[in-house]
Structure formats: structure tokens, C-alpha cells
């Protein structure tokens, strides 16, 4: 049985269908990519899996490690081993990063960026700093699955490499499954996912074991015409 199984997931936000009977799975220790245009439902899917209770499930279920976690609190899901690196994490003024890490820490050894420790959580962080900060927090948790929402967006090549190295060292090399959600796919060359899925209008419309095929197809047709993606993908 897969580590994560998302079955017929339906989510509506303000009357608009954001996830539409979506099915999706990740195996233990697997590195999987999820690509899609803006508004396709990528971030919503990540948040729903990580337990954002502000999003209501209309139908479907999420099975993790053989347990139905569809109604579990977010903290329970972290305890089970799932956590999300946010695309746009909120700044929390007045909360020192070092104190925050001390409160969430489940592991002694984690990646630490010293220059963040004396600053308030995400306050005044550049886009790149936020991404590294998100990864730093996740490396302090005992996880089985990390969800990385646009971890490469807004980063220059050097920073994408830095993020990829942290992901490899602290997650992939340790057998933690990784879901890479990405719009343009810059990081895929560095992380080499074993499967790449395409999501459009809240549905997985195609997948391929070779991420390069997907990148080529998207480049050729753009997401706007990505219905054609399925022609090229070994679904």
C-alpha cells in the first residue's frame, strides 16, 4: 500500500471547485513532482494533505500510512510524519526563530541557518530566505513525507541549488518521501523525481516517469494547451 493515497478528493472554495475528484499517491521514500499552472489546485492539495482546517473537504479521503487522516488536526498529521513547506509563510513578529525552533524541535540534529535564529519568524525575510527558513523548520521534525510548495519560485540558480542540497541531504537521502510542487520545474533537474504529475483545473491530467518529457511538453504547448500533455505522457 502507498505511503499516501488521496482518493476522489473534492474541495470547493467560495463555490468554485478547486479539487475535482482528484486521485493521487506517493510511495514510501519516493520523490514525486506535481506541476500545474497558477490556480490549478496545487497549493490547495498540499494544504489539504497537511491538514489546513480552513479548507473543507467536500468528498474523498486521505490515507497516510494506512490511516485515514482526512479529519485529523494538522498537529496530529505532523506527529504522523507529514509537513508542508509553505509557498508564502506568514511573518510572526515578536516570535524569535530560535525560540520557535526550540518549541517545534523533534530532532537534535537539524539544518540550522545561524543568521535566522535571532530574527522574528519570517519577518523581513526575502523570498529566498523564506524558502530556506521553511526547509530549516522541516528538518527539525521527524517526517515521512515533506510537501514542498513552490520551493524554487523566486530563487536564483545558486539558491535553487542550496535548497536542493538541503532537500537531498535531510530528506531524500534519509528515505523521506518528497512531493515537489513547482510551476516552472527548475529544481527537477537537481532532485530527479521518479514521477511527475500534471494538475489542471483540480484534476491530475497526466503523469510521466521521465520529468524531462513533461518539461518538454509544457515548454512546447504551455499549460494553456496542456490537455495535449496526455498524448505525450505514459498515463
Amino acid at each position, binding site marked *: 500500500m502507498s505511503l499516501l493515497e488521496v482518493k476522489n478528493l473534492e474541495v470547493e472554495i467560495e463555490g468554485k471547485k478547486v479539487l475535482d475528484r482528484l486521485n493521487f499517491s506517493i510511495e514510501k521514500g519516493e520523490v514525486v513532482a506535481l506541476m500545474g499552472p497558477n490556480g490549478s489546485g496545487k497549493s490547495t492539495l498540499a494544504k489539504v494533505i*497537511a491538514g489546513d*482546517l480552513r479548507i473543507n473537504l467536500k468528498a474523498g479521503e486521505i490515507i497516510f500510512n494506512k490511516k485515514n487522516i482526512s479529519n485529523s488536526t*494538522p498537529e496530529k498529521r*505532523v*506527529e504522523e510524519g507529514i509537513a508542508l513547506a509553505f509557498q508564502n509563510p506568514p511573518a510572526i*513578529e515578536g*516570535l524569535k526563530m530560535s525560540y520557535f525552533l526550540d518549541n517545534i524541535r523533534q530532532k537534535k540534529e537539524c539544518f540550522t541557518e545561524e543568521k535566522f535564529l535571532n530574527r522574528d519568524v519570517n519577518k523581513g525575510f526575502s523570498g529566498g530566505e523564506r524558502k530556506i527558513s521553511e526547509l530549516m523548520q522541516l528538518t527539525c521534525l521527524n517526517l515521512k513525507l515533506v510537501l514542498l510548495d513552490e520551493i524554487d519560485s523566486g530563487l536564483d540558480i545558486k539558491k535553487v541549488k542550496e535548497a536542493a542540497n538541503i532537500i537531498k541531504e535531510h530528506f531524500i537521502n534519509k528515505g523521506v518521501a518528497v512531493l515537489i510542487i513547482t510551476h516552472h520545474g527548475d529544481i527537477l533537474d537537481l532532485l530527479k523525481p521518479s514521477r511527475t504529475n500534471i494538475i489542471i483545473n483540480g484534476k491530475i491530467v497526466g503523469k510521466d516517469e521521465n520529468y524531462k518529457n513533461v518539461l518538454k511538453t509544457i515548454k512546447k504547448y504551455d499549460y494553456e494547451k496542456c490537455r495535449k500533455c496526455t498524448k505525450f505522457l505514459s498515463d
Partner: protein
Amino acid sequence: MKNAESALNFYQIDNKIDRIQGKEEVVILPSNLAWKNFIWTHEYFDRKPKQGFFLWVKKNTKQKLNTLIEITSKNIIQEMTNLIIIEKGINAELASFCRSVKRVKGKHFALAKIIIKENSNLEFSQGNLWRKEDEFEANYSFILAKGAKLKTVITNQGDGAKINTKENIYLKGKGSSADVRIKMIAKEKGTFFSESYMHGEDEVKGHLECSGLIIDKKSKITSIPGIICNSNKAELTHEASIGKISEEKLMYLRMRGLSEKKATELIIKSFLNS
């Protein structure tokens, strides 16, 4: 706690003074004794004091001054009249805390006057933590002379308490300035009524910020900030906001494995520190 208590310059438990520790640079007395020993204090005390402390900073002191007033027994009434005087050209730092340590149905009434004389600087933090069925009323007046500076944060937390506070900051002397932040946290059906006024009497600068955080649906905060310019040379500004805990921040912390209770605690802490 032993170490924390030993650093206290004034410590009152219920209606008994447990510790009072002045030094060469700072005179600290019970207010009623100051009234008796120093006739000149009568012009500052608004009433003959029954309780409270008199803190007179005469010379510069490197040490931060600390006071703590607690209610630990049931149905205690404290009627504090406090007078703090910072002499001319002094830099001083004072942290004052008042609280009930458990559910005691206590009443704490405080009338405090803080006089900051010419060219002095005072950094003052006042924390108040009151619990269910406690009543807390405070009236603070800050009076700043020429060139005096005040930086203060007053935090009032009411875990089910009824809290009524008033602050007046009088920027009287030319060149005086004040940065005043009032923070209120209402929990467990706690109610707040808070009035804060900054008065500009000359060429002065001042900023008043009042912010409230309501933790649950049954708590209430009324905040009335005001700036009163009695001189066309006074520059005064104010900000006020009352809000609930940000759902986004709460969810973010919970998605790092913290329980709802712990995440709320951290958000309150961040609010107090910001």
C-alpha cells in the same frame, strides 16, 4: 524564582510588604512612609496613601529596578498609590508587575504618578496579569518636563478578569518625547475598558499605540486612545487596533506540530514582544 525575587526592589504579597530594597542612588519606601517623611511629596500624591510604593531615583543607576505586587489569597483588596520620581538628567529603567497567581477573586486598584524631570530618560514596562473574577483598575499619569524622554510598554492580560485602565501622558516641557504602547489581551470572558490620552503642551513629540488581542468569542475590549494638542508645536500621533488571533498564523504553527493551545500561547507571546 528565588533569584527573580532577590532582584526585586519592592515586593508586596497580598497586603504585606515582603521585600523593600533601596540603594544609595534610589530611595524606595512604602508610600505612606514617604508621605510622612517627605512633605514635598504631598504635591504629587493625589491622596494620602494607604498602600503602594514610593520610588525616587536620585542618581544614575546601572541596575534595572523591579517591583512585583501579587495577590495570592482569596478576597484581598489592594489599594495602591504609587509615586515614581526620576530626578533631573537621570537614565532609569523600571519593570513593574502586578498579578494574581491563581484564582483568588482579588481586587487591585492602582493610582500611579510618574514624574520625569528635565532631560531624564525612563524606560518603563508595566505588566498586569489578572484572572477570572479579579477586578483591576489602574490610573497612571506620566508627567514629562523639558527634554524628558519616556519609552513605555504597558501590557494588561485579563484571563477572565474585569479590567478598567486609564493612562494620561503629559508632555509638558519643550523637547520632551514619549513612545507609549498599550497592549491588551482578553481571554476567557475577560473585559477591558481602556482610555489612554497623550497631551502635548509645548514643542514635543509623542506616539501612542493601543493594540488589543481577543482570544475567544466572549471576551471584550473597548479601547479609547486620544491625543490632545494644546500647542501648535506639538507633534502627536496614535494608532489603535483590536483583533482576534490570526487564523493563518495559528494554522501555520499547528502545521509545525504545535497543539492549538501551545500555538495560541506562542501567538500571545509574539503579540507581547512585538
